Structures are given as C-alpha cells and as structure tokens.
C-alpha cells in the first residue's frame, strides 16, 4: 500500500469498521480477553481508581498538615493515611502505570508483533494485580496499616497493631503481576520483533521498557521474599529481623531496598521512554544521540541495583559501605544527565509544534532535572545525614515520581490517546490542565525542599509552629494539583464519545504503531510489517511493508 495514500485516507477516515474495541462486546469479552490492548485498558481503569484513592489520601493528610497540631485527625489516622498513600501510589499506581498501560498497549505495536509472547500470562498478571489490590484494600477497610510503605522491622513485624500481614500479602501478590509483565516484555522484545526491526531501530520506548523489565524480573522477587519473612515473623515468631528474637532489623532494610531503590527506576525509566518518543515527534527531528539514550537506559537499570545502601547512610551501616554506596549512587547521575542533554539537543533546529504531550515532556525534562540534581544532594554523605527522613527527601522523590513519572505518564496518555481510542482529546482543556498540574506540583513540593533542610522530619502528624507557613503553601499546592488531575479525567471521558476522529497518524509521527489504524485491529496490523528505517526517521517519508 502506498504510504502517502494511506495517510491521506486515514486522516480523513472514520475508524475502521472492525477494531479491537468493537470486535465483540460484553463483560466476558473484556474479562477473558487475551488482547494486549484490551488488557492495557483493564489496567488503565484499575490504576486510575487506585490513583484517585491514593490522591485522596494525600489531600486528606495535607489538610491535616495545615495546622501544626494533629487536630483534624489523630496521629494514628494520619499515619494510616500516609501509609495508604505510599502503598497505593507505589505498588498500585506508579509501578504498573506506564509499563502495564502504555507498555502493554504499545510494545507489540511498536515492534510489529500481533501480541505479547504470552497473552494469557498477560491477562493473569492483571488478575494477580487485582487480587493483590483487593487484599490491600480489605486491610485498609478493616482498619488500615500504619507502618509506612517501607514496613521497617521490628515495628512492622512486632509492634504495629494494624493489619500488616494482610497488607504485605497484598503487596507480595501484586509483585508477581509486575514480574509477569516484565517477563512478557523481555521475551516479546527478544523474540517477536518484525523482520528488519533491529535493536538499533527500536523505539527508545522499547529500550526503556526492556531495561524496566530487567529490574522487575530481578528485583521484585527479593521484595516478595522480604515481605514473606516479615509476615512469617509477625504470624509465627519466625525470628529473622526482630532483635528480641535474635535478628537484625538492618538486614530487612538491605533486603527491602535491594528492590525498592531499583523500583524508582521502574517508575522513571518508562517515562523517559515516553519523552524520547514525544520530543522527536513534535520537533520533527531524529532523536539526538539515539545510542546514548538507549544504552543509558540499560546503564540506569544495572547501576540502579548497586546503590541501595544510600538509604542506609544513617542506619548504622558501616562507614566503608556508606562510602561505596555513595560513590556508586553518584554514577547514576551520568546516564540521567546524558538523557536530559540529548533530549534538549533534539529540540535544536527542530520544527517544533506546541501540543499538550510536548508540554508534558518538557515539564518532565525540567522537573526531572530538579529531581535528579537533588538526588546528588542526597547521595552526598553529610548532606544525607542531615536531610535523611526529612521533607527534603519527600520533595526529592516526588520530583522524580510525580514531576517525572506522572508527567511522563500523562504525556504518553495524551500522545497515544488517539491511537487507543481513535479520537482526539480537547487540546485547549488539555493545555490548561497541564499548566495547572505544573503550577500545583511546584507549589506543593518546592517548599518541602526548604522544610527538609530546615529539619522537619517526614511522617510527622504534628510539627513545630515555625514550619507552618511552608506547610500551608504545600497544602495549597496539593489542592491545586488535585484539581489539575481531575480535569483530564473528565475530558478523556468526554473525548471517548465526542472527540473528533483522529485517523491513523494525527501527529505525523514515525514508528510502526502509527502505520496501523486507530484504534488498531485485534491483530494490530492488516499486513505483516517489514521495517527498513529507524523509528525516528522524521527526515524521511514513513516506509511501510
């Protein structure tokens, strides 16, 4: 089929008569689907619910923090709220967010495959996710858990009077959904690429998902077993971590952070992949330094496993280990910096058109830069001694996870929304909400850097009076941020019915996913893709088949 002809037709045409959304109807057709695109939507719906649950918890405890006393809720309720927020946002939103929704939808499309390698495992991963979520929600409804998402022993294993065992079971189960997703991606990327799709022609989104999958597969099981051991200690006094039973609580911190530090890269790497797609598209340029961005993803995934000890600088870890982990943590800055510089350079002499996904991507670059640079602060030993477990840390990781990962997620959702639904979102509202989110985010979290250096510890239901002004700023920002997140929820729903038809390739983007119809047919492509150009051939015509 001639490319030009196809594009002209597609841009005017209504969606194809048969596509993955209307191929069959009914609850069964969704709950038993093995189509990666439908599973992606199942994930989208579930993680959106979790996102607003976690967000609601955050808004509530930010309201509590308007005043220095624990007056809106008791300390116990406050503790349960921040624990719920952390658990839900990390295990049930951020970790599955981009991989399980956008990754699930796009990995086969981008490499020219009909589906993931193991479609049934893919569906299973969603069920596992939901079962894990139900455990955690049950624990929350029965009375909640107050250990913080970090489950530090011996508080979690012995002292806490909340539903720890049920909650860790939930987190444990959900871990397997992440493992199954990672395993599926690894095999799919290795074995299912279309003819001609060499490694160096792959979209960077795929590279970053490959790196992410490695972390999921090699890290998650360690979290799983650590949580099992906590539950065993709690239920059967199988002493591993509790010093009263002879154990060492710091060992838990080692086991926990062996996964949970790399888990940060599970959240941020896919967002980096999204940015690497959006920036070239809207500057109509080949991405600058493709190989450097690609291999820096792998470097981040590998190095990410060598730095967990920086969470233990003041935990009585040995000075020697502190020095080693500080040194290695510094090195993670390098691949991150390489990415930021290359994205910026891609804009140079581009043909830049302003669209919401680009705004999110640029927001990501800026906020991730701040998050990454403050990462150097906390990798620097004496600074970390001072700011460890203060609001400085809270601000730092929210710049990475919200300023980075969620910006990337929203950018990607806008960018591929036309592919997913076949319709365009309303550009004006989208820009407006992007602005609100950017402003709200910075107002929420920038004051927390100052609070942290002043010395306000995190997880405090009550705090000394002099911290109030900055806390009020932060709470005000949180409410703005909350509204910012509600707007897309509304207009995405609206656009599913009323949005204009998008056509196959509304952004004039390269990459295989744009060569098929929007929404794509169940088997993704009407033809067998043959690849003969890079995913970023913005200086060439798109070649298909």
């Amino acid at each position: 089929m001639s490319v030009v002809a196809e594009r002209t037709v597609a841009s005017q045409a209504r969606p194809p008569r048969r596509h993955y959304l209307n191929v069959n109807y009914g609850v069964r057709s969704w709950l038993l689907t093995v189509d990666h695109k439908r599973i992606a939507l199942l994930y989208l719906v579930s993680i959106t619910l979790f996102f607003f649950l976690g967000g609601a918890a955050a808004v509530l405890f930010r309201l509590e923090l308007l005043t220095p006393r624990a007056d809106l809720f008791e300390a116990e309720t406050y503790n349960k709220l921040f624990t719920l927020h952390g658990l839900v946002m990390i295990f049930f939103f951020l970790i599955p967010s981009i991989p399980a929704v956008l990754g699930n939808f796009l990995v086969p499309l981008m490499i020219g495959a009909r589906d993931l390698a193991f479609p049934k495992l893919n569906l299973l991963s969603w069920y596992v996710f939901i079962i894990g979520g139900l455990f955690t929600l049950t624990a929350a409804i029965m009375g909640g858990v107050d250990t913080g998402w970090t489950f530090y022993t011996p508080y979690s294993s012995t002292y806490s009077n909340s539903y720890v065992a049920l909650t860790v079971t939930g987190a444990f189960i959900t871990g397997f959904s992440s493992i199954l997703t990672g395993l599926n991606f690894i095999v799919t990327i290795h074995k299912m690429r279309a003819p001609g799709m060499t490694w160096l022609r792959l979209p960077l989104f795929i590279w970053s998902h490959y790196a992410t999958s490695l972390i999921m597969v090699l890290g998650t099981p360690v979290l799983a077993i650590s949580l099992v051991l906590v539950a065993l200690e709690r239920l059967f006094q199988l002493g591993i971590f509790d010093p009263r039973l002879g154990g060492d609580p710091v060992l838990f911190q080692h086991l926990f952070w062996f996964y949970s530090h790399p888990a940060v890269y599970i959240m941020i790497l896919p967002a980096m992949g999204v940015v690497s797609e959006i920036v070239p598209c809207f500057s109509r340029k080949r991405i600058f330094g493709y190989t450097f961005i690609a291999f820096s993803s792998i470097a981040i995934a590998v190095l990410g496993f060598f730095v967990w000890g920086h969470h233990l600088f003041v935990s009585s870890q040995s000075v020697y280990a502190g020095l080693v982990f500080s040194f290695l943590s510094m090195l993670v800055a390098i691949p991150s910096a390489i990415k930021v510089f290359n994205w910026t350079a891609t804009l140079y002499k581009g043909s830049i058109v302003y669209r919401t996904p680009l705004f999110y991507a640029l927001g990501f670059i800026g906020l991730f830069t701040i998050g990454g640079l403050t990462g150097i602060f906390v990798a620097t030993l004496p600074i970390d001694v001072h700011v460890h477990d203060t609001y400085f840390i809270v601000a730092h990781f929210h710049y990475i996870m919200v300023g980075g990962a969620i910006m990337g997620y929203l950018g990607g959702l806008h960018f591929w929304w036309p592919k997913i639904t076949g319709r365009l979102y309303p550009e004006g509202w989208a820009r407006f909400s992007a602005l609100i989110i950017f402003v709200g985010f910075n107002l929420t979290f920038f004051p927390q850097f100052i609070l942290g250096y002043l010395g306000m510890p995190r997880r405090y239901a009550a705090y000394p009076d002099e911290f109030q002004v900055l806390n009020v700023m932060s709470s005000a920002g949180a409410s703005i941020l909350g509204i910012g997140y509600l707007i897309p929820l509304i207009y995405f729903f609206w656009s599913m019915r009323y949005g204009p038809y998008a056509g196959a390739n509304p952004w004039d983007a390269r990459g295989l996913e744009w060569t098929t119809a929007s929404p794509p047919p169940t088997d993704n492509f009407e033809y067998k893709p043959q690849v003969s150009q890079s995913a970023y051939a913005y200086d060439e015509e798109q070649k298909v088949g």
Partner: protein
Amino acid sequence: MDSHAAAAQRKTYFLVFGALLVLTLTTTGVAFINLGPLNTPVALAIAMIKAALVMIYFMHLRHSTFLTRVFAGAGLIWLLHFIIFTMSDYLTR
C-alpha cells in the same frame, strides 16, 4: 534425532545421575572429616558442581542458545552481587 544419538543421550542422563549420587555421598562423608576452615568451601564447591551438572545436562544448557545461557547466568550473577554488596556492610562493621 537418530536412534544412535538418542541412546547416547539416554546414557548421558544415567551417567550424570550416577555422578550426582556419588557427589551427594561424598559431600555427606566429607562433612564428618575435619578440614578446618575448608569444610564449608568444599561442601559449596561440591554443591556447585552438582548444580552445574543438573543445569548443563538435565536442563539442556549444553544445547541452548547463547541468549538462554545469558539469562540462566543472570540470576546467579545478580544473586552473587546481592550477597557481596550486603556483606560489604556486615564484614566492615
């Protein structure tokens, strides 16, 4: 696979099985001999040989692609890294 090669493969399986049993008895026997600090390294060395035999012959790594071998090794290497870096704290306390 022709019948000759098949017979050879079958024979290999039994040989490996025999070797594994001998090594099991050896490791139990050696445990009762005082080798000073060497008891644990010897026991672990025997365990590694046994594991290698199982992986190479029973799990067919001998006939596997390079990629499969990389993934078979990846888990082990990662575990080794995990152990070494955790011990870097405990041994320098």
